[in-house]
């Protein structure tokens, strides 16, 4: 009984139904486990891990500003729209409570999108496709991605970042 000390020797062989269940469960678990690494080779969508430490926020803002200056093609609600070189390094900066700038990407081209926060932790949620990544201060997180569907996307913050959290909405275009 679960509420009494068991008999002196309880280490006994399994019965057939226990063996069966253990075998099924083990097999299933090992399969799901194996798929995680295997999917890195056969799958198209895996969590990125490339990261750099940003020792000084100005270093990152300088990169963002340079990109905006060179590739700016418009402006919406005071936020520049940039159309960077296809296949290049692209910089996106989060701060309370703004995503800066608005990126315009080309379908089928691969980009290295660097995301970084100037102040506190934010969450990058690309909607409506619902892809989500954390954005931390002091770390540059490189998302290597290839847009496959053109359209207008929104970037919503999904990590609490103060009272204006719900106003932190940005945009992303795929042409």
């Amino acid at each position, binding site marked *: 009984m679960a509420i009494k000390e068991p008999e002196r020797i309880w280490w006994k062989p399994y019965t057939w139904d226990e063996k069966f269940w253990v075998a099924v469960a083990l097999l299933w678990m090992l399969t799901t486990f194996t798929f995680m690494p295997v999917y890195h080779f056969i799958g198209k969508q895996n969590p990125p891990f490339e990261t750099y430490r940003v020792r000084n926020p100005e270093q990152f803002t300088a990169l963002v500003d340079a990109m905006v200056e060179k590739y700016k093609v418009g402006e919406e609600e005071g936020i520049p729209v940039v159309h960077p070189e296809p296949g290049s390094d692209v910089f996106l900066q989060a701060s309370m409570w703004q995503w800066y700038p608005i990126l315009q990407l080309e379908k089928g081209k691969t980009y290295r999108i660097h995301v970084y926060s100037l102040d506190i932790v934010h969450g990058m949620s690309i909607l409506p496709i619902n892809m989500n990544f*954390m954005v931390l201060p002091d770390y540059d997180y490189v998302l290597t991605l290839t847009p496959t569907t053109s359209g207008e996307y929104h970037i919503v913050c999904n990590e609490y970042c103060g009272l204006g959290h719900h106003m932190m*909405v940005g945009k992303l275009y795929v042409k």
Partner: protein
Amino acid sequence: MEFRTCSFTGLKIHKPAEDLIKWNVITAVLFLTLGGLMGLLIGITRWPSVHYLDPTYYYRYLTLHGFDALLVWIIFFEVALVHFTSAVLLNTRTVIPSAGWIAYSLMLIGAIFVNITTFAGKADVLFTSYVPLKASGVYYTGVIIFAVGALTAFGHFFANIIQAKRDGAYKHSLPLGSFGMAAASIIAVVTLAHGAVIMIPTLLWSIGLIKYLDPGTYRLIFWGLGHPSQQINVCAMVAAWYMVSAFVLGGKPVNEKLSRTAFVLYIFFINVASEHHLLVDPIFSNWHKIINTSYVMHLAVFASMVHAFAIPASMEVALREKGYTNGLFEWLKKAPWGNPAFSGTFLSIIGFGFLGGTTGVIAGTEQFNIIRHNTFFITGHFHGTVVVGTTLAFMAFSYLLMPYIFKRELIMPRLASVQPYLYFIGVSMVSIGMMAAGALGVPRRHWDITFSGAPFSFTFDPSVDMFLSIMGLGTLLAVFAGVIYVVVIIGSALFGRRVAP
């Protein structure tokens, strides 16, 4: 002597252990009440057609809901289980009762610190308090005091079983219920040690003695605290399942080896799953993510599947021994469905498995996590584990503690017998509504999904409104059932008819 014999179970109950259990249970229930009230307020705020609180109070009460419900209610109840399984179940005493009272006081003081600071608006950081978001130093002090108290309380488990063995209370092996709580206590030590490692520097940083804290390191170590504390819950909950099955049905584990192996796998591997909070964080390599988020090759998930087999099997065997042997399922029909201790346990097993467990394993898979992280899906998932699972299991167990420990009959037994069903349905609606909305991208911890005041606005799929309304209606039902629970437990503890000694 300070012992009495329980007229229901024949257990020899040590008076100081009994008092510690009573106070910890009552305190737990009071904090559940507070946490549930906050749950109501934030629940109806996230229900679009009500949208009750303004943002300041929404985030403030969300902080308190997380802290009071997730940490304070659950850990106080687990401390009651510590004394129950390391003293009462072994027919022996709780050693150094004063240590139990010190632990109790520290936890209470810490919890009060946190609540007052948060109500005063000095800690709107949510219970995760990710740096560089900063709360008042009193908040972190409260968390640390609470954690030290909890560590003392779980340490008590080890002191008790060592003494029990010396006294000959058990010869070789702990009863399975106590073994499960041993697993819980071991995990608690890992958890609270991580808590100390990260909360003390955070306190120093908040009062200006340390200039810088690395946000990546904070998240790594914080989740070494935040996630394993859920694994304490899992172990304690499974131990409670086994014990209720034994007390109510006379069920015994069909195979001690199988059940214990599952607990041992928990002890070794379940804690590393903290990683699933970091799957879309920068920094960690794929192998760090894969090995850790899979609980080292899903061995701890395997353990849960073993319990999912062993507990219903033990119930079946016990009921069949009572003579319900017709057909495949007579035993199930004849189970004591009107006994809230049994029905709560049964629903907790179902809910934990199907609502919480499966969704957790899916969302914790590296690749799936990209499309679920920080959405409302996650909140839905853990209301399946920690509310339908752990909270309902503890509610069920407390119905047993009333006669055994409080020596009182339940007041309003009719109402008590429907309470687990109502709570199960209510929280399942909350959980399913959240998960459905989250699958469509609705973020968690978000005051306004119409984004009022934002430069751009995103419009969710129209069905989101319906899912969030299901959550809202579930909130009302769950809170109603929660009120019944609190009234029955507190009412019985104070005014229930005394059972014959």
